[in-house]
């Protein structure tokens, strides 16, 4: 490699590892897509503004300690379109999405708040259905809705309804999780087949004249987290809820946070045939498609098999798999060993394949 080429590559590496700056003139849909632009918004504008160590961790929930008690706090907003889709609806999605942000932070979900922004003219029956969906999902996840708020906006200003939540959880004593904890050799687990939620929404919008029996995977992940903590305890390094931006973006965020490399074995990533087929037709990589009930977990090598076995015994995680491992070089990057025998980089999502997924 020539000296100049070496220099150019090191410039790229430095640029990649730098904290992104928010320089855009306007907010575009890409800022909401969970990829690079979202990262710029969060790390370039929001996190620096609030100067909070909990926030700087960039975890799915922030941890607050009160008199020795570790509480996890998270907030989420749901603008999914359409509000009902195969496998779920906005009410259940809101509860599960919030609960999962707590769970992957190693916190047992305890309580939720619920804010509803409702569009003038929404049929009461639809509202009732969603409120019931919230109640049902909360009961299943073992959380109590303890506070709420309602606002109604003029017709045309909120698409049926938006849901805002806050989740409170108690940090589990077994958890020693940190986004900076990944070590070379750690194994990467995924709790089941990927890409279902995003694909289900895409098809539900009817823009592609494509029919397939694909349902959203929306579900609470506390059971999966509980099993992982039991099996791996402190050897469970970190977890992430693979929502917007998919598994690919989750892995990239953590590779950056821990300054490690990752290698994903493409052939070992579980993808349902219908999702694989739809992705193939639409030219989308399922690794970038949103999930609403899948986590990625990083486990020290010696506990990886036990953790995977524990995960597979959880209802809904039967297809959990080990998909790769953490390496040293190149830092902050995720590589894929393709099923065909080649390699490539799996970067963060750039642009927005599909807005308003959750």
């Amino acid at each position, binding site marked *: 490699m020539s000296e100049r080429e070496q220099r150019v590559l090191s410039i790229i590496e430095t640029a990649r590892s730098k904290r992104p700056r928010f320089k855009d003139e306007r907010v575009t849909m890409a800022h909401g897509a969970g990829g690079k632009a979202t990262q710029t918004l969060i790390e370039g504008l929001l996190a620096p503004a609030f100067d909070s160590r909990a926030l700087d961790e960039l975890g799915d929930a922030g941890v607050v300690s009160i008199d020795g008690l570790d509480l996890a706090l998270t907030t989420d907003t749901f603008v999914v379109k359409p509000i009902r889709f195969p496998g779920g609806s906005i009410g259940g999605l809101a509860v599960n999405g919030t609960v999962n942000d707590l769970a992957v932070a190693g916190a047992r979900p305890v309580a939720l708040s619920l804010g509803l922004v409702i569009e003038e003219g929404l049929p009461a029956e639809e509202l009732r259905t969603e409120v019931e969906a919230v109640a049902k999902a909360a009961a299943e996840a073992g959380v109590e809705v303890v506070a709420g708020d309602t606002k109604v906006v003029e017709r045309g200003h909120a698409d049926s309804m938006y849901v805002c939540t806050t989740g409170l959880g108690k940090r589990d004593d077994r958890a020693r999780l940190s986004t900076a904890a990944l070590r070379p050799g750690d194994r990467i687990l995924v709790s089941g087949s990927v890409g279902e939620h995003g694909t289900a929404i895409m098809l539900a919008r009817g823009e592609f004249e494509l029919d397939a029996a694909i349902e959203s995977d929306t579900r609470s992940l506390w059971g999966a987290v509980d099993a992982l903590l039991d099996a791996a305890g402190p050897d469970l390094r970190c977890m992430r809820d693979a929502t917007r931006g998919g598994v690919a973006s989750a892995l990239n965020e953590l590779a950056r946070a821990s300054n490690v490399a990752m290698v994903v074995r493409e052939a070992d990533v579980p993808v349902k045939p219908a999702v694989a087929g739809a992705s193939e037709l639409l030219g989308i990589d399922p690794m970038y498609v949103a999930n609403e009930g899948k986590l990625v977990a990083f486990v020290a090598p010696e506990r990886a098999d036990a953790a995977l076995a524990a995960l597979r015994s959880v209802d809904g995680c039967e297809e959990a798999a080990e998909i790769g491992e953490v390496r040293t070089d190149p830092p902050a990057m995720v590589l894929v060993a*393709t099923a065909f025998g*080649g390699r490539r980089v799996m970067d963060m999502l*750039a642009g927005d394949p599909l807005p308003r997924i959750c």
Partner: protein
Amino acid sequence: MRFVDEFRDAELGRAVAGEILATVETGRHYKVMEVCGGHTHSIYKYGVDDLLPANVELVHGPGCPVCVIPMGRVDDGIAIAHQDGVTFTCFGDMMRVPGSDGTLLDAKAEGADVRMVYSPLDALRIAKENPDRDVVFFAIGFETTAPSTALTMKRARMERVRNFFCMCNHVTIVPPLRALLESPDLRLDGFIGPGHVSTVVGARPFEFIPADYGKPVVISGFEPLDLLQSVHMIMRQLAEELCEVEVQYSRVVPYEGNLQALKVMAEVFELRPHFEWRGLGFISQSALKLTEAYADLDAEIRYEVPGVRVADPKACQCGEVLKGVIKPWECKVFGTACTPEHAIGTCMVSPEGACAAYYNYGRFAREREVV
């Protein structure tokens, strides 16, 4: 997936890679250009070039339809999108291509009604559903997508849809290839010919490449095994000192092309005297416009557009990258001023572009053994 997985078999891939290795001459460096952006995408998606010997280098050609649209045309599109009562439709990756002042995605954020469609027929449907709005379709692509635009225009005419307009940016594949081949500093040994374009135009239009320029052409499919086999066919031609057009993608490419598609195109489009290509400059008779019979559906006639030619940024050396004269990292602005997030040149714009591909994947390609 049946009929897909068969073409992605890793074991067969290793076998073909072995045959390529056995065919190449030790010590000779081969440069093969894959013309089509779809090929570039497949090469990276599957890591095809990891299976090639280190002395076989793939050069990414000008066949990414998004990358070649010049800034001035993007500016014109954005100007139309900002007009009152206009719904502007285009393919998704076009929305991120920078003009001289922002992208269509930025225009959308500023309030323009810009919508992504997957097919020109979707744009026509939007027009029929919104009779009070002018729906403009920003048509891009080579002969691959031109027939579907042509059919859509015919249907719009037949159904008497009066609020549907096309801003035609369709380009043709042969003139830029000829321009490349005419370049005195070109360093290429052969071409992987465009598969999808050839399903329409057939293989005959590429015969000038071996005949006039002495370079083999193999028209290839898009699966990783297709590409490896095509590289092997080129290496075999070079080893046996043959020079001809071969069709590897014979399961869909008829040698004479798709006569019906060509007929529809001829009814709706005519050649422009010249058209600007990003990175390559003006190339005569290299693009299509709507014929006189469709003038009333031509967005360029209906709307005042700036029509200003915006020069490629001076520092940008995309043209040389496209010709294989310099490597992406040898460009003055590569990786510093020009990155995938803030692209200056065409090659960095789309993930199918040579520089974006190199930026993201480049350093891993050179770990291969040198033969």
